[in-house]
């Protein structure tokens, strides 16, 4: 087991290095730098050149890359030109918000997917299954940002059931019960909006897994042992069908990253996604680079997590 995990983690290292090089090169290719627009126009070009020199911006790319990576490893993601504060500090606040939003979305995703997928798979080709399958097709076809806007308009503005922006009501003391409740309250609508769309993959996947497992020979063996229909479902079909969902977990996380970018902007939720888009429009490159790097690492970690989960639960690939 540990051998597999160690090997799997070792594979991650070149992945992350490659990712960081890619992001660094893309960042360098972006036109202009922080000095070209932000500094007093009275400063002479010679002085700017001197500044660039002293900031190390004229060094060869690999030296600059080394400096950047060295900083990143120590938690120094650079300086935001917009907020005039370290990127790590800005990201630090946002990343927690995004984490909670993602977690809530994941919970809703599985809360919706598991019962729907099971019903759909168990009673396949029934009316109920057709209704669920129709929902998944609609989910596939509906763009998340439009759906999120509609949800915001209906439940936020028209019905007024949920707050329409922010991550917490102003004026509450962090750590109090009201503060936590307000946090949760702000989470629910964006999380549900996102989950309703992203869950359709999982519903379909689970449905086809169950239909597949239902036809396996060992299900007949179970019936021949005298197991009742409910036991056949609970002990044999469900267990064997839920397992592959673990492998799906990594994709789930990648999907979430894309989702948060839309949803946070639409719901005005101060997380990484919102920060990302804002920083792009304002050309706050050091923030963009940092956020991209973190998103990339999250995706790689997601894949790692599903591999490890799968190797833990599936005896066929479990390594002793």
């Amino acid at each position, binding site marked *: 087991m540990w*051998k597999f995990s*160690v*090997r799997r983690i*070792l594979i991650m290292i070149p992945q992350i290095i490659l990712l960081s090089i890619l992001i660094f090169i893309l960042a360098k290719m972006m036109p202009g730098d922080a000095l070209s627009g932000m500094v007093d126009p009275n400063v002479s070009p010679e002085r700017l050149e001197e500044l660039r020199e002293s900031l190390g911006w004229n060094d060869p790319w690999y030296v600059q890359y080394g400096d950047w990576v060295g900083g990143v490893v120590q938690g120094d993601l650079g300086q935001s030109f917009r907020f005039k504060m370290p990127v790590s500090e800005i990201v630090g606040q946002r990343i927690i918000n995004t984490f909670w939003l993602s977690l809530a979305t994941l919970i809703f995703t599985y809360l919706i997917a598991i019962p729907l997928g099971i019903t759909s798979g168990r009673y396949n080709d029934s009316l109920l299954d057709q209704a669920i399958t129709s929902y998944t097709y609609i989910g596939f076809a509906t763009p998340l940002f439009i759906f999120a806007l509609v949800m915001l308009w209906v439940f936020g503005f028209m019905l007024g059931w949920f707050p329409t922006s922010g991550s917490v009501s102003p004026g509450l003391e962090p750590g109090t019960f009201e503060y936590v409740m307000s946090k949760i309250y702000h989470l629910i609508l964006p999380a549900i909006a996102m989950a309703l769309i992203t869950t359709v993959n999982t519903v379909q996947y689970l449905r086809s897994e169950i239909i597949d497992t239902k036809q396996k020979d060992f299900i007949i063996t179970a019936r021949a042992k005298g197991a009742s229909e409910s036991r056949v479902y609970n002990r044999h079909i469900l267990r064997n069908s839920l397992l592959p969902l673990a492998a799906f977990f990594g994709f789930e996380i990648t999907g979430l990253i894309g989702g948060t970018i839309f949803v946070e902007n639409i719901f005005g939720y101060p997380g990484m996604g919102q920060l990302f888009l804002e920083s792009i429009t304002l050309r706050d490159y050091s923030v963009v680079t940092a956020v991209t790097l973190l998103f990339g690492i999250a995706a790689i970690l997601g894949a790692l997590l599903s591999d490890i989960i799968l190797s833990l639960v599936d005896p066929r690939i479990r390594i002793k």
Partner: protein
Amino acid sequence: MAFLEVEDLKVHFPIKGGIFGRTVDYVRAVDGVSLSLEKGKTYGLVGESGSGKTTTGRAIIGLNKITSGKVTFDGNDISNLKSRSEVRKDVQMIFQDPYSSLNPKKRVIDIVAEPLRNFEKLSKKEEKIRVQELLELVGLSPESILKYPHEFSGGQRQRIGIARAIALKPKLIIADEPVSALDVSVQAQVLNFMQDIQQELDLTYLFIGHDLGVIKHMCDKIGIMYKGRYVEEGTTEEIFNNPQHIYTKRLVAAIPDIDPKRRQEQTQFRQEVKTEYEQSYNDYFDDEGLAYKLQPVTDTHLVALPEKG
């Protein structure tokens, strides 16, 4: 020199292990097999699952990489890829499962004509005529060229596979368990047919199988494999009536007797062989449980026994 000569063939597959996925060991799927086929004859390669019989066949035709050893066909060394291309059309293969070895999305004409398209430049019309001839030869109606594999029964599909294999008028056919997936009456059709075209086209067969009844029916000479090595080789007569190696004896004893009245004797005989197998296991296999090198008993009969002395 024999028509097909295999000398000390080895096919080893690497086992990856450790944190860096290095090769830590090899699976010795085929570990020093030598055999020779006479033209126009059928050679049976027998073994249980995991014995390396299929790998041997696949290595001869080039579907598995040869680790070491030499394969000579009709005087040409075909052990490596380069030299093989010249004789590729002369050696064809028939596969075990007629249900999965034919592409379900292709029509019969495309399946059968595929080797023709690779090796011969025929016009559409010529190609169609050739395919129809081939289908007739395997006993299928020439009108069926536009059908898909699923429209045929198992035996008919295996005939399509055979039509494809003989399209280029090969000299050697490697048949990998060609009837294992078929019912007995369909099996009879295919076996009869294979014998018919053998005479008609002067074919040589390497017949890989585990059903000793079929092997006995089809083959002139038989080689018995166990864990990648030969344990015994001889004429059909020698193998079935005078098996020398304990493994061969056990294999022959395990064949169900078609006469229910001989049940008692059969059980007793099997019990004797079993006892002998257990008692003399160490005399026939080395420390790793592998067979020894073959020693001649007669001109045609070879048995894997430890060297004397």
